[in-house]
């Protein structure tokens, strides 16, 4: 099996556009949660979101037909462009067939569908825009990013709710390991900030809704209330280790393990055995012992059930070592970017490895007896991170765990 280098990263999140804004936000322990910018939020009981601030697609996507793109594809193209630049990636003509794309999404073209349905049901306009399909299909972001760079190898879009990016990166990793591709642009994108999407999440009764938007998401804290819906995209350049070595590019980290399991239990209630098994599978593939993991980027949604369950999962998977793990939920800052989460959080993890800092869990005010591990509360922590995992445990019980280690 071949080794896989991460040579490029790009991110768009509620911290802003780009890796710089993202890392600065995490290190400043800043919240990206604000009052939602929807023009007509009156029917929403919850009006808090972690939106990408002041995103102007024209500014970031010169030369690309914006009309053809739903917001989730726009975000993916911007993150993809940063990742390609960051990796100094160029492909020889013969390499295009060996380079692919794997960009997942949970919700897909929500804002396009919103316009479509409003025209039909509310405005009684019989005509739908002819770009509606190219914009709304879940695979649109993967196709657009692939088209932008002429990636003619494997092209896939994994949609596993909030684990979409985790699985997308994991599957791309396995393709390179198995020799089916040499380079993969992998990640996720979601832009679900529309009134109907908010209504369905409200109906699940899992959204945080305190008076102060900035402190809404409080993972692992006793006073946690729930999720803050976010948006964004993360894209990583995964590359055959030898190819990366030969061209002398900086390697951010080595992607070493991927565990994928399904609860096959309840459609929303998280399981324990299957997520713990996913962690063990990722560690086994990585050839890492549990005690070699220093940092965990938790799924950490901030719901009562998720955070308590994830704590139990970590104890199950890591045994006595669980108490020595530095665990954080960066969702406390960038919100829950749905199908982009796994990519955004893997990028946070890798930046932490490179810069020897564990990003914090912000808005942590009091310990919960059900969450009794070390969640790096409120402030980033300088520490050497040799190896880490990033968890994505989705509604529907589909679990993806990625293991990374310091490049060496």
């Amino acid at each position, binding site marked *: 099996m071949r080794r896989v280098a991460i040579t490029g990263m790009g991110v768009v999140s509620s911290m802003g556009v780009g890796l710089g804004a993202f890392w600065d936000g995490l290190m400043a322990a800043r919240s990206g949660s604000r009052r939602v910018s929807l023009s007509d939020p009156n029917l929403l009981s919850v009006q808090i979101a972690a939106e990408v601030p002041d995103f102007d697609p024209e500014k970031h996507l010169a030369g690309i037909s914006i*009309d053809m793109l739903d917001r989730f594809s726009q975000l993916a193209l911007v993150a993809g462009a940063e990742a390609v630049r960051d990796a100094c990636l160029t492909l020889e003509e013969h390499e295009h067939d060996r380079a692919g794309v794997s960009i997942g999404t949970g919700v897909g073209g929500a804002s*396009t569908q919103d*316009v479509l349905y409003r*025209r039909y049901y509310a405005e009684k*306009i*019989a*005509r739908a*825009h*002819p*770009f*509606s399909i*190219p*914009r709304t299909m879940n695979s649109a972001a993967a196709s657009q990013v692939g088209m932008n760079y002429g990636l003619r190898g494997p092209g896939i879009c994994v949609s596993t709710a909030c684990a979409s990016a985790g699985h997308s990166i994991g599957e791309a990793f396995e393709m390179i390991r198995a020799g089916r591709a040499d380079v993969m642009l992998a990640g996720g994108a979601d832009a679900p900030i529309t009134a109907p999407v908010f209504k369905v999440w409200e109906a699940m009764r899992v959204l945080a809704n305190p008076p102060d938007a900035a402190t809404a998401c409080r993972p692992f804290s006793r006073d946690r209330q729930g999720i803050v819906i976010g948006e964004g995209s993360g894209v990583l350049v995964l590359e055959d280790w030898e190819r990366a070595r030969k061209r002398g590019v900086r390697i951010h980290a080595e992607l070493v393990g991927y565990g994928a399991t399904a609860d096959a239990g309840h459609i929303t209630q998280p399981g324990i055995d299957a997520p713990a098994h996913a962690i063990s599978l990722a560690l086994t593939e990585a050839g890492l012992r549990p005690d070699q993991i220093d940092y965990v980027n938790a799924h950490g949604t901030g719901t009562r059930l998720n955070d308590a369950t994830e704590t139990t999962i970590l104890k199950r998977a890591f045994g006595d070592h669980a108490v020595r793990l530095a665990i954080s939920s960066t969702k406390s800052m960038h919100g829950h970017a749905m199908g982009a989460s796994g990519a955004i959080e893997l990028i946070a993890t890798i930046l932490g490895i490179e810069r020897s800092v564990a990003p914090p869990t912000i808005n942590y005010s009091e310990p919960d007896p059900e969450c009794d591990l070390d969640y790096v509360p409120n402030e980033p922590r300088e520490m050497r991170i040799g190896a880490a995992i990033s968890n994505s445990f989705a509604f529907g019980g589909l679990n993806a765990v990625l293991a990374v280690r310091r490049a060496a």
Partner: protein
Amino acid sequence: MSETPQSGDATAVDPASPEFERKVIGLIAKKKKLEPSTITPESTFQEMGIDSLDGIDLVFTFEDEFNISIPDQVVQKMKSVGQVIEALREVLTKRAPSA
């Protein structure tokens, strides 16, 4: 997706007039980011770089602008600006006057 508003005053333009021709050319020019003066009735979609997807996007624009429905068989005949103008005139003339 740009939300073209339902245009009320578009019907005020007489389809037979040169003004109507200018309006159609203006819509094509705006959509394809071309200079209107470079477009004539003889200009073909191919010359203007309008592919099949651009074509149906244009049809959508005309439908919204003139509040009409253009049948598929008419759309298939549209390969040049002249054919577009002719087809639109045909559809607009046949349409029962709206209240």
